């Protein structure tokens, strides 16, 4: 089936197998290997991309359902040679080790920074909370890091959120 979607600002028309996930479309067909497959079941966040500006697990989206969508992957975060502030902060804070969860962490954080509203740890749900470390930890808990870089991930995001 033919679908057309915008990926990192470029229109792409692809003939996809209806069983193919958005993640496999990116990785296997479009050569965008930045989005990672850690579980293929929506359990780890390694495949997180932005779909129309919102973070989503691309392993849980069927490619055919993405017709007309705007997708941003980790390859699309930087502005040319200039890193996204989150990317720069991740390097400065050593917020990764093996780097396999990192593209998902970055896309998730980029999406998270634009998400208003309370979370499960917000004391007063009627007031938009500050992004305290506790809020960041809660909002980033869909992205597992087995290398255990959380402490540095949170400090990197907190610096950008300030």
């Amino acid at each position: 089936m033919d679908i057309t979607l915008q990926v990192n600002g470029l229109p792409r028309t692809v003939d996809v197998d209806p069983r193919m996930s958005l993640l496999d479309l990116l990785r296997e067909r479009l050569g965008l290997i930045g989005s990672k497959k850690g579980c293929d079941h929506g359990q780890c966040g390694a495949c997180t991309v932005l779909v129309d500006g919102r973070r989503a697990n691309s392993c849980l989206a069927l490619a055919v359902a993405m017709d007309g969508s705007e997708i941003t992957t980790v390859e699309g975060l930087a502005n040319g040679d200039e890193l996204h502030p989150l990317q720069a902060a991740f390097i400065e804070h050593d917020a990764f080790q093996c780097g396999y969860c990192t593209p998902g962490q970055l896309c998730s954080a980029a999406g998270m920074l634009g998400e208003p509203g309370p979370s499960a740890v917000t004391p007063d749900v009627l007031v938009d909370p500050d992004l305290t470390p506790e809020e960041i930890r809660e909002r980033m808990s869909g992205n597992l890091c087995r290398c255990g870089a959380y402490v540095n991930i949170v400090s990197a995001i907190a610096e950008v959120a300030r």
Partner: protein
Amino acid sequence: MNRVEGRVKVTGLATYAAEYPVEGVAHAYPVQSLIAKGRVARVDASQALDMPGVLGVLSVEDPPQLAPDADGELALFQSRDVAYRGQLIAAAVADTYENARAAADAVRVEYEPADHDVGLRADHPGLYRPEVVNPNYPADTEHGDVEAGLAEAATTVDVTYTTPVLHNNPMEPHAAVALWDAEGRLLVYNSTQGASPDRDTIAGTLGLPPSRVRVVARHVGGGFGCKGSTRPHAVLAALASRAVGRPVKVVLTRQQMFDVTGYRTPTIQRLRLGADAEGRLTALEHVAYEQSSTLVEFAEQTATPARTMYAAPALRTAHRLVRLDVATPSWMRAPGECPGMYALESALDELACAAGIDPVELRVRNEPETEPESGLPFSSRNLVACLREGARRFGWDRRDPEPGVRREGEWLVGTGVAASTYPARRRPSQAVATVRNGDFLIQVAAADIGTGARTVLTRIAAETLGVAPDRVHVELGDSDLPDAPVAGGSMGTASWGSAVVRACEELMKNGKEGRADTTDEVATDAELARHAFGAQFAEVRVSAVTGEVRVPRLLGVFAAGRILDAGLARSQFIGGMTMGLGMALMEETLTDEEFGGFLRRDLAQYHVPACADVADVEAVWLEEEDDALNPMGNKGIGEIGIVGTAAAIGNAVHHATGRRIRDLPITPAKILAPSP
């Protein structure tokens, strides 16, 4: 200095095994055994072969040619016998991943099942004493009279701790892409912790000389041991590619990883300790019961840290193994030290409580002069300094030893301590240093699995050459580079770094090129007890309502020789401690007694720490000079961080609640269960 490969990792350009663009690549998808023991009577591939895009089905019906002495876990499709549920018994190969997966699903397998036995018990009739435990330690040691030591003790402890099956679960699933060239040379892009040993094993399995195989692994998405030895997916990729005459990619699913990429054996550990009135040990006995498969003997060295830790006139350690209808356990971060120190350091806390002695003080009082079992002098040992420094930073002197008395609302609060240790060894390695365009090129088949090997080797070379790090370029992760040992046993930096230093020294002499092979140098290392040590402190809050355990504070203080890069070291330490938190509170794979195999084979059920579980984890270290290690003076740091964390947390849970939970993980259900 930031990580050398930081930019490619944050921009999504770092290429992991499954991601190399290979023209015409096909996909193989495994079929796994649904029985735990018995025989494969028939594999019917007819339906699968008719499906779209299918290129072939591999199975025991037409066994691929392999070396007759191939490792039992790698000898794919050679035998009709099934050793465990989940074993790879066939595979479908097709033009796309979707087609291969659908075809694998359509392969029909008829079995002749037999009764299986998958349960580890301390009274299992099949238990035996292995010849050696991993990697090559004696299974049992004994000196002094343990019974007499216990009889004369003022305080004794006799306790049994258990740890469950644990899975490494690196974020990158095991993957391989295999390509054969026209001359019959095999190239494998593989997720491996060691390109050289992986090449040797793949070649040996296929019956090829190592010179006909090349393994490339430039970026590896974690491993923690489960990519340290060759796994069946790599052999499958090579066999499938040979069978269909195209490059073939195999990417294991998260569920398949649980079955065929190794795991930490469950353990049952009995500790008997005796101490005199001052808390000095009179006897220490540590016996570990563990499992392996019927295919391969893997005996984890769980009781070995007791041979190093404390002065005891009577000291006995023993390992007993039973071969079950399960997959073969393997390396997971700090095999031996991690589960063994969990039990030993928990039992020591029980002894401290029973004797009414502060647990830091108890450890200090049992500091040995030489390594207790071997009698060898330590190259350096600063456990006491780590305990003292940790106690100072953590505010230990304000601690009331009474368990179960601090409550803030629903939360019971407690603190705990445990010691850490890990051997500091090195292996022979080669390296080449050359001048290229006025800069320096360092080549070594090392692996960077997230440890920062590229970065630390760059620093080591720059320091030896006396140049700025940005003039040094390190190439690693390719078996065509100078041979290097696996990234494992916390030996990577010590081993590769030694060779890099020697190669750079030679380059400085002749101005052009240095080639090093440290085989002779390592062979003449003096006989000494070489270990890193540390102390871990944990604060926990336990909900009296839900049984939930939170860990607001973890502090590790380590003495690990010279720290070569503060940023990388801190990341390694806190990463290990974070994994230790998972071991303490949530990680557990269940064994299915009825059908064999594992349950909880995904990340929704096998819980690893998430961001919200990890609050304040800090690691610091003491300056430690040790000239007897290697030219850099470093001890490995990849594993010691996980050693002791679970005990510190368990001891803190006891301090908070008065409950001693001796079976990991410490779940809310166990906290809330009525006291026995």
